[in-house]
């Protein structure tokens, strides 16, 4: 039986990182600054996909990441008016809800310039927020592995009357199936990296034309130095979460996405991730866990269901399930900081744009998923079959089968969405989750749960 009712989980058994509050303040300040960027004399770029913000920072621009704003609205349960505006414009609910929300924001921003009351259903405050984004001066698209993402800014370009410049970066899909291919290696990887790097050089020319100012390479190096350090601290913090019980969870790291994904590369960013790591280290040293009574360690594959972040964290904790790893955390957002040469960062940046978790063939995803499953001693995988993100969902059945066949780790699937709560059915997740935990209990009692435990070697698929 399906139901749209979401029951409130029992007492909150999560122990979220306190640094999350610091991050929330930084993010709120960032958006407030962006809303008045025009008044502060900044040129504004709208973009999607990989984290181009250090490029924009070096060019003296203000930047708006479309997905990030859609996620923010959804996390605050404020996405409705923007999505309705997108629907009125002609986009149905099967379109990526990130893009549907952000395109709705674009519609409201355009409308807001001459009629701020042209909201959809009279929720004026929410409409007001959704229409707060300052109009762009130009667009840049940097989307890898998702055809919708690659067209998204083209559509924004049309909503704004086809008058504004747009720059599209093309990313080869990393199939990973040539004889010399592997994660971060092989001719395919090398040539794709150089191809995208070349486009970043062209982007710099484009931005110089738009701003009328020479690009500040020193500023880029400085920004990337801060980002690299922040990314290293993030990786060190993630490494600490392999401890048992885990000191922090996937949900804590979800709350850290915005800072690493689009906040300026500066000392504040480094300080934030130093604080996150220190808090986790303190928890490890003092045996403090991320949830009460950790009984199961789970992997979460799928883009975040932003409407349900708090709810899902409590739902899993209620069952003693510590969600520790996921493609959206371990395999995204400057996750390979060693690739960044801070004196010449363009190649390392290009490589990270290619490392978008939707831009890999199944061999690489299989390798990465199994590796994290073994490294974090995962008991079960939870696949968030993101309704409007087929790029992420496509290989999930293959990953589930591989985890079962190679590591003896079971999986469940539930449907939800990144920014549209109507696709989430709590009973479906609850029944599948509990059934999997019961099966894990039984397998543990028999002593045959998992064929590989913590630290098992995971080889590149043959």
């Amino acid at each position, binding site marked *: 039986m399906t139901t749209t009712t979401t029951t409130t989980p029992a007492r909150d058994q999560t122990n979220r990182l306190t640094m999350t509050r610091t991050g929330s303040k930084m993010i709120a300040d960032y958006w407030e600054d962006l809303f008045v960027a025009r008044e502060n004399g900044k040129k504004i770029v709208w973009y999607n996909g990989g984290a181009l913000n250090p490029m924009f920072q070096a060019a003296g621009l203000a930047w708006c990441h479309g997905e990030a704003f859609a996620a923010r609205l959804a996390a605050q349960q404020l996405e409705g008016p923007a999505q309705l505006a997108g629907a009125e414009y002609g986009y149905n609910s099967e379109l990526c809800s990130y893009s549907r929300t952000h395109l709705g924001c674009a519609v409201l921003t355009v409308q807001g310039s001459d009629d701020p009351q042209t909201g959809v259903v009279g929720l004026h405050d929410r409409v007001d927020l959704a229409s707060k984004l300052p109009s762009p001066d130009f667009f840049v698209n940097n989307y890898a592995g998702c055809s919708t993402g690659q067209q998204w800014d083209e559509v924004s370009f049309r909503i704004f009357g086809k008058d504004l410049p747009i720059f599209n970066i093309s990313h080869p899909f990393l199939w990973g199936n040539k004889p010399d291919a592997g994660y971060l290696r092989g001719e395919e990887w090398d040539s794709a990296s150089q191809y995208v790097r070349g486009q970043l050089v062209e982007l710099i020319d484009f931005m110089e034309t738009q701003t009328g100012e020479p690009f500040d390479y020193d500023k880029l190096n400085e920004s990337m130095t801060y980002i690299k350090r922040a990314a290293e601290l993030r990786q060190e913090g993630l490494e600490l979460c392999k401890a048992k019980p885990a000191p922090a969870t996937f949900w804590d790291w979800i709350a850290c996405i915005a800072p690493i994904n689009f906040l300026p590369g500066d000392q504040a960013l480094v300080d934030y991730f130093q604080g996150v790591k220190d808090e986790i280290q303190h928890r490890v040293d003092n045996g403090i866990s991320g949830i009460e009574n950790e009984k199961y360690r789970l992997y979460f594959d799928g883009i975040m269901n932003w409407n349900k972040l708090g709810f899902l964290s409590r739902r899993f904790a209620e069952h003693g399930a510590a969600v520790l790893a996921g493609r959206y955390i371990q395999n995204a957002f400057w996750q390979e900081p060693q690739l960044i040469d801070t004196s010449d960062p363009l190649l390392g940046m290009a490589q990270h744009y290619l490392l978008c978790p939707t831009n890999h063939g199944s061999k690489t995803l299989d390798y990465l998923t199994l590796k994290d499953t073994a490294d974090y001693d995962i008991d079960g995988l939870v696949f968030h079959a993101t309704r409007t993100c087929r790029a992420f969902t496509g290989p999930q059945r293959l990953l589930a089968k591989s985890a079962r066949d190679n590591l003896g780790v079971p999986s469940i699937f539930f449907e939800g969405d990144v920014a549209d709560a109507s696709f989430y059915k709590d009973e*479906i997740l609850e029944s*599948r989750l509990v*059934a999997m935990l*019961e099966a894990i209990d*039984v397998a543990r009692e028999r002593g045959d749960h998992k064929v590989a435990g913590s630290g098992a070697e995971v080889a590149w698929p043959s």
Partner: protein
Amino acid sequence: MTRRVLGVDLGSTTAKAVVVDEAGAILASSTVAMGAVSRAGMHRCIDEAVGRAGIEVGDVSGTISTGYGRKLVPGIQRSYTEITCHARGVAAMVPGVRLIVDIGGQDSKAITVDKDGLVVDFAMNDRCASGTGRFYEVLARAIEIELPELGPLAMRGSQDLEVSSMCATFAETEIVSLMAQDMRVEDIASSVHRAIAGRTLALVAQVGRRTPVVMTGGVARNPAAVHFLSRALDHEVLVPEQPQISGAYGAALLAMESFLRTSPPVPDVPGADFIFPRVDHTAAGHSCAGCDGHLRGKVELGAAIPLRSS
């Protein structure tokens, strides 16, 4: 004294209860059609099953519940999901089973089990009532016959009318459209059954086709549903004598196993039938099986509470 335990499956449209003895043999069962997750239906079902077993509710040594309404069943030791209970019940009903297809009122499941009858993998219908008992109800209503008549009618159909809808609501529209085209109701009925079997096959594909195959749930009483599933799977589909009670039976078996595992020999305490030992819940090796997770804190080892069973 012979122990009797109870399994209750409070599903979306029917309540099922089974009483078993210490050997796991079914003493009595009951199935009550009701409104959605009905408390009244559940109580009637439990009373019937217990009455048929010739005992009182107070004589029941333990109860485990399952189904959507499992949390509503009173006096339970704990609850399990339908997945675990159906697997356990069917494995006892049909030893050697490897694939279970359960189609209930509002959901359908494909469950693979190992040689010990334990769950290996499972898949359930998502989003809607596609491929569930609800789908058959829609069909019966549209062609104006009673549900039990549906299977025999569908078995007489011959032409494949390619009913394609995944949604029960839209399927009704499609059925009405076919009737407006004056298609034979037998062909409409068989085509809908064929379409549902196709949906079920997609569910089976998620867990992998294994044999022997057993079909359970209320829909398994429909001979056409079994026939078309068998054709879709290209393999014989077995149906237990009482396909609706497999979840409740599995719950009862789990209740008995839990009872036998946690119940020590009857102590030499005047007036006591059994004792519950106190254990340290942080003690190494302590199994939480049968515990609902609400027990907290340390209690001293070695102490015991003598209890009378009635």
